[in-house]
C-alpha cells in the first residue's frame, strides 16, 4: 500500500485547471459536504445537520435493505432435515423403550421398539448424508471432533448409536446372541437420549431467530416429541398386554412437548410468530391437534387394540408435523428481515 500525504485541507485544496489537476486529490480523506466556506447555513436558516429537537426523519420502526433477508437461510431440504429431526427423536426414545421392554419382559414391545429405533436411526443417517452438498465426502464429518459444532457431536453420536441399535435390533428380532444383544441394548439406551435431544442444539446453534431464541425450551420440545413418537410406535405395533409403558411414554412425551412449546412461544415474543403463521404455523397446529387427539385416544382406548393403534399413528404423525412446523417456521424467520432486525434493535436500545 502506498503512503499518502495527510491532506488536512481536503477537497478545497484541489482544483481542475487547463493545466490539469492542481492540488491534491481528496481521495479517502474527502469529506461529505465541505465544498465551500458557506457550509453550515441552509436556505431555511437552519444549520445543516442540526435538528429541530425532533429527528429529520421520524424514527421508523423497522428498516431493511429492500426487504432482503439479513441472514442466509439454511439450504437444508425439509424432507432430509425435518425428517432427520423426527427420526432421530423417534430412534433415541425408542431405544429407551426397547431396553425397558427387555428388562421388564415384554418381548413384542422389545422387538418393535428396537427395530423401530434402528430403522429410524439408519434412515436419519441416510437423510443426513443425502442432504450433503458432496455426499461422497460424508466421512469428512469424522475427521475432527468439535464440541462447538453440534453437527460434529451428532455425527459421532450417530456413528456410535446406529451400529449399536442395529445389533440390539438384530439380536432381539432373530433371538440370537443374547449377551451381545444385551450389551448393545444398554449402549443404545445410553446414547439414545443424546441422539433424541442434541438435534435441538443443532438447530438452535444458528442465527435463525425462531430457532436460536427458543434454545432453552427446544431440547424439551424435542425429547417430548421423540417420546411421543416412540410411544406411538409401541401403541401402533405392540399388543395391548405389552403396550402399557408405551402408552405412558406417549402421554409423558406429548405433554412435555406441548407444555415446553407453549412456554417457548410465550417467552420469545415476536420471533415466535412464525410458529403460528404460514406453513410452519399450519404444521405446528396440526401437530398440536394430533397430539391432543392421540393422547385422548391412548388414554380412553386402552382396552381397544384398534383405537390404541390409531392413537399411536396420530402421535407419530403429530411428532413429524411438529418437526416440519419447527423447520418451516425457522425458514420463515430467516427469510423475513424483521425477525433479525427488530429484536436486535430492541436489544441494543435496552443497553443504551
Amino acid at each position, binding site marked *: 500500500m502506498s503512503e499518502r500525504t495527510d491532506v488536512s485541507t481536503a477537497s478545497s485544496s484541489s482544483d481542475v485547471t487547463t493545466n490539469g489537476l492542481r492540488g491534491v486529490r481528496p481521495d479517502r480523506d474527502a469529506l*461529505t459536504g*465541505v465544498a465551500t466556506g458557506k457550509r453550515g*447555513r441552509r*436556505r431555511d436558516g437552519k444549520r445543516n445537520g442540526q435538528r429541530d429537537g425532533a429527528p429529520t426523519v421520524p424514527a421508523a420502526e423497522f*428498516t431493511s435493505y429492500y426487504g432482503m433477508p439479513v441472514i442466509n437461510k439454511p439450504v437444508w431440504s425439509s424432507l432430509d432435515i425435518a425428517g432427520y429431526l423426527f427420526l432421530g427423536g423417534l430412534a433415541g426414545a425408542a431405544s429407551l423403550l426397547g431396553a425397558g421392554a427387555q428388562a*421388564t419382559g415384554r418381548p413384542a414391545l422389545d422387538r418393535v421398539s428396537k427395530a423401530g429405533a434402528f430403522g429410524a436411526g439408519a434412515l436419519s443417517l441416510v437423510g443426513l448424508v443425502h442432504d450433503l452438498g458432496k455426499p461422497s*465426502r460424508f466421512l*469428512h464429518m469424522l475427521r475432527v471432533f468439535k464440541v462447538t459444532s453440534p453437527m460434529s457431536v451428532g455425527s459421532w453420536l450417530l456413528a456410535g448409536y446406529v451400529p449399536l441399535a442395529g445389533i440390539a435390533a438384530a439380536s432381539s428380532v432373530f433371538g440370537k446372541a443374547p449377551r451381545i444383544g444385551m450389551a448393545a441394548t444398554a449402549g443404545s439406551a445410553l446414547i439414545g437420549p443424546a441422539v433424541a435431544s442434541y438435534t435441538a442444539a443443532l438447530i438452535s446453534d444458528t442465527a435463525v431467530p425462531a430457532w436460536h431464541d427458543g*434454545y432453552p425450551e427446544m431440547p424439551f420440545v424435542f425429547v417430548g416429541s421423540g417420546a411421543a413418537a416412540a410411544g406411538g410406535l409401541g401403541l401402533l405395533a405392540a399388543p395391548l398386554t405389552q403396550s402399557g409403558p408405551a402408552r405412558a411414554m406417549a402421554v409423558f412425551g406429548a405433554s412435555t412437548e406441548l407444555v415446553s412449546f407453549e412456554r417457548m412461544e410465550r417467552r420469545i415474543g415476536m420471533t415466535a410468530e412464525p410458529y403460528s403463521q404460514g406453513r410452519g404455523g399450519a404444521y405446528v397446529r396440526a401437530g398440536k391437534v394430533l397430539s391432543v387427539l392421540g393422547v385422548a385416544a391412548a388414554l380412553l382406548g386402552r382396552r381397544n387394540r384398534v383405537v390404541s393403534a390409531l392413537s399411536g399413528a396420530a402421535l407419530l404423525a403429530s411428532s413429524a408435523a411438529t418437526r416440519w412446523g419447527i423447520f418451516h417456521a425457522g425458514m420463515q424467520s430467516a427469510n423475513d428481515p424483521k425477525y433479525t432486525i427488530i429484536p436486535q434493535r430492541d436489544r441494543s436500545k435496552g443497553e443504551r
Partner: protein
Amino acid sequence: MAPVDIQIGRRPNLEGALLGDTDPATQGGYSEHPPRMGFFTDTSVCIGCKACEVACKEWNAIPEDGLVFTGMSMDNSQGLGASTWRHVAFIEQRKPIAAQDPGIRHDTDVLALAGQGSGTPPDQAAMTPTTPGADGEFRWLMASDVCKHCTHAACLDVCPTGSLFRTEFGTVVVQEDICNGCGYCIPACPYGVIDQRKGDGRAWKCTLCYDRLSVGQEPACAKSCPTNSIQFGPLDELRERADARLARLHEAGVADARLYGRDPDDGVGGDGAFFLLLDEPEVYGLPPDPVVTTRDLPSMWKHVAAAAVTLVGGALAAFAAGRRI
C-alpha cells in the same frame, strides 16, 4: 509485508474462545504469527463503481452469480453469497446529504434578466433549469460489503469437518477440498455471508485473498478500489485510522457517521472487516447487533443434557406406571 514463518503450537485455552476481545490467531493455535489483517471499508468515499466486485471475481475465479435486473437502484448482485464475495449496496434516500452545500445562491434570476425573448416566460414556467429543488433532500449511499472475518466466527465454530479454519492472519477461510457441503455454516453466520454454490454443493465465501496475503500482497478488492474506500492493513492500524476518520467526519457535521464492527466488545468480539456507515446498519442490510450464536452454546448443551435426563426419567416413570395403564 514478507511471508512469515508460522508455528503451530498447542491450543492455548478455552477461555476467550467464545466471548470477548481476543487475538483469534493465537486462539486458533498459532504461537507465532503475523499481525491480524483486515479491511476498513469507509463507505463515505465509496462511489459505487463495483471495481471491488469485479476484481474479486477475476482474482478468485468466481463463477457468474446471476444476470438479473432487480430494480434495487444500481444493485444487481443483491447480497453476499457463494459467488458474490464483495457486494456493493446502493441506497437512495429522501434525506439531506449530511452538511453538503454547493454554496450557490440563485438570488438573481438570470433568465428573467435575459428578457422574455422566447418561449414561456420563466415566471410562468413550472420549472426552469435553475429552479432549486428541495434543499438537499436526496442522498445516495453506497457501501461495499464483505465477509467480516469475525473474532468469534460462528461459521468456523459450527463447521463439523474442520473445513473452515483460522489463518495465521486471523482471517477465516474455507478449505474447499475438505468441505462436504453440510451447509451448517450458512445459517450460523449472523451476517448472511457464506452460502452454498448451486451445482457445486460446497460453501464458499471471501478468503480475504489468503493466497495474496501469503505472498505479501493486498487483497484484490482493496487493490482495485479507486477511492480507497476499501482499506487493507493490520487491524490495529485500521482501527486507529477509522477513529480519526470518524472524528473528522463528525467535526465536519456528518453526525450520522458511525463505525460498524469496530468494537472488540460487541457480540462477535469485533470484526476483522469493519465499516464506516452513514446510516443505521440495517439500512445497508447489516444486522444492528449481531451475536455469535455459539456464545449461547454452553447453555444450549446444559439444556440438552437436562432434557436427555428428563427423557430417561420419563421412560423410567413410564415403566413404573406401565402396569396400571
